[in-house]
């Protein structure tokens, strides 16, 4: 066992490092995060410049085929690039959904001339894409969406509302899942489209989150007219297309960078005085530090197991499905505990250690436990896909969508 690169991987890592050294600034300390709040227009401009540079050098999407600006490389090289990039101060986070989910769905369903038109500008950061799935009445149960698309000659007319749309306020295009037939059961009446976010009738309203940020939006559709040529997949097969999108979400295997963790918690515990001395000498404090250390290590090493499979050209096992289940509550609980160590001052967002980072993690953790699959949905997924337990009984399975909730 070892954590070493293969010869090919090592050579690639060296190549990436040289390129990053020449084009970006190395971080001075590893708690610096690249995932700044993405509601800052200045940052978006910088991120677009960085994305263009990356795409021009061939690093933006290594696994994509050459014809789309990739290198047809193995996923492990994509991971190596991300590992190295995480050590530099570069603006990230604006293109993950577009390139990780929307464009792969386009590749599966769009026409060649459409791919010709859209893939390259997306890859180079000139056009940003969003995913319009969730609705006020359809979160975990995304197939329960109500936004309607009705046929009108060669066009479709869309009416309804989406919510939690990351980045819609700066996005140029989006993929949208709609209900085209309410007379059949839930999953059967869906159809997927893509559209220009500047199409008349599309209105984006940012949602201010509990954390103060505004990364998400409500998106309203009022008589939005789009041509049938923007349909992705067959009419009524939108659920299949949505699964393509969501499958791609799960291929993301990079390590999250930045954030406070055990080292910072240890430092805080050394500097905090409790009744009988430094907090680090208190057995309750030590027990919690040990538990979180075991989780932190466990997550890092579990990723290493996944990377091992990728490095050997194998399909990774299901072990990475545990990561968010562990990481999100850990972030919330560790934040809360660090705040407790500060006493009453733990409520303050200024004049507290680590620039109130633990306070931010406590707030952010509440959202992280929900975003991209709630704790509960992720446990269902583990139970069903890994352990082979039965799916929940779907009382709406055979009932036409427009008859749901009626006696």
């Amino acid at each position: 066992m070892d954590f070493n690169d293969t010869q090919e991987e090592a050579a690639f890592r060296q190549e990436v490092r040289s390129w990053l050294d020449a084009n970006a600034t190395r971080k001075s300390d590893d708690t610096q995060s690249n995932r700044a709040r993405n509601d800052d227009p200045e940052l978006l401009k910088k991120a677009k410049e960085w994305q263009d540079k990356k795409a021009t050098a061939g690093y933006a999407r290594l696994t994509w085929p050459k014809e789309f600006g990739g290198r047809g490389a193995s996923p492990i090289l994509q991971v190596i690039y991300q590992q190295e990039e995480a050590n530099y101060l570069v603006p990230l986070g604006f293109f993950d959904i577009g390139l990780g989910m929307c464009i792969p769905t386009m590749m599966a369903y769009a026409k060649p001339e459409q791919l010709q038109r859209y893939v390259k500008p997306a890859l180079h950061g000139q056009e940003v894409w969003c995913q319009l799935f969730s609705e006020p009445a359809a979160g975990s149960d995304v197939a329960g969406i109500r936004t309607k698309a009705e046929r009108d000659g060669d066009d479709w007319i869309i009416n309804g509302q989406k919510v939690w749309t990351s980045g819609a306020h700066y996005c140029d295009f989006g993929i949208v899942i709609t209900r085209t037939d309410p007379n059949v059961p839930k999953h059967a009446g869906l159809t997927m489209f893509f559209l220009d976010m500047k199409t008349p009738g599309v209105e984006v309203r940012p949602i201010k989150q509990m954390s103060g940020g505004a990364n998400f939006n409500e998106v309203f559709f009022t008589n939005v007219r789009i041509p049938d040529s923007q349909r992705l997949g067959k009419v009524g097969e939108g659920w299949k297309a949505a699964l393509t999108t969501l499958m791609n979400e799960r291929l993301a295997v990079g390590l999250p960078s930045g954030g406070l963790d055990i080292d910072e918690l240890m430092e805080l515990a050394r500097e905090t005085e409790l009744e009988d001395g430094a907090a680090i000498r208190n057995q309750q404090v030590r027990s919690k530090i040990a538990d979180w250390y075991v989780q932190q290590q466990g997550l890092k090493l579990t990723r290493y197991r996944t990377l091992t499979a990728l490095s050997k050209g194998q399909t990774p096992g299901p072990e990475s499905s545990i990561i968010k289940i562990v990481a999100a509550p850990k972030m919330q609980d560790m934040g809360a505990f660090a705040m407790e160590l500060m006493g009453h001052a733990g409520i303050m967002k200024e004049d507290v250690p680590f620039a109130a980072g633990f306070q931010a993690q406590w707030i952010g953790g509440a959202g992280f436990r929900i975003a991209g699959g709630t704790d509960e949905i992720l446990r269902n997924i583990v139970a069903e896909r890994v352990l082979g337990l039965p799916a929940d009984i779907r009382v709406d399975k055979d009932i036409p969508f427009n008859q749901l909730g009626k006696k």
Partner: protein
Amino acid sequence: MNFDFSDDQKLLKEQVRKFLADKCPTKVVRRVLDGPETHAEDVWKGLVDLGVPALGIPEEYGGMGLSPLEVCVVAEEIGRAAAPVPFDTSVVLATEALKLAGSDAQKKKWLPELASGKAIGTLAIAEGAQPPKPRNIRTTFGGGRLNGKKLPVTDGEAATFAIVLANSGGSGDRAVSLVLVDLGQAGVAKKRIETIDPARKHAELTFNDATAELLGGEGEGWRLLERLYDAAAVYFAFAQVGGAEAAMWMARDYALQRQAFGRAIGSYQAIKHKLADCYVKLELARSNAYYGAMMLTEDGADLPLAAAAARIAATDAYDFAAKENIQTHGGIGFTWEADTQFHYRRSRLLALSIGGPMAWKDKLVTRLEQKNAA
């Protein structure tokens, strides 16, 4: 990145798994639990024939000279089967103690016998209901003679020799030494004691001027024991991972089959989420155990930290899976006839026999402090 076992190691694992599935089904565990045997001699003989005790012993001492990784994959299978054999004692604790602290003469005498299965070794540390510390060990060693009482000693009856922690007259941590004592002599009395896991037999050993010799330096007992426990923590973690996985699947199989309120209980989220949590803890434990194995193999500087993390994660995973397995079974899971009890019992035995989670968490943070200070 190569954070996995080799194909050969996986093949060995598969071979031992098949052997145990065939020769050590749960009815064998029950036979030992309910009966007078000290251990399942038939299963143990088969494991000896497969070369299991010889795996980690150097070739010059009659072993196969393989790495700790081979012993780890076997430990996982022993744990999965909850096998009633002296693996944790003889193959892990006694063998590792000899490799760690034995003189050449001691190794020459005992390692070939351990490798061939002629001898069974064990470790005798505790002296009743107090966690052992250098200051509270009352068994004494001096002038080549051992006096005192040790309990509980796993496999105390079956063992040929024991490695005993005894007070040798020094002060502080140097008050104690490890001594090696042949249990087949007049000065040794063995008495079976009742424990929570009768599938692994335990004894009280009484030493009355028994002939014994130092294993490692005088006054080095506590330091050596800590090092021995780091290696043991990794092997135990694999056994715990195997046991946790077995308990999880046992609960899952029952949840698929048992109907309540018109459907399989495994379709209720209260059960699904509990079993998903078993899986989460299991994978955290497995990953930490792998790193422990890697550090043990490399003799890496991170071993003390990796061993503690593996120990804590694996103890948590096995405890949780074992108790929720019974809970998933409901009343039938609490009967003597049910197989659920084997893992419940074994999980506690393994959790406590080389120091419980509280002690290991304290050690882990101490080691983290040392690492950060360095």
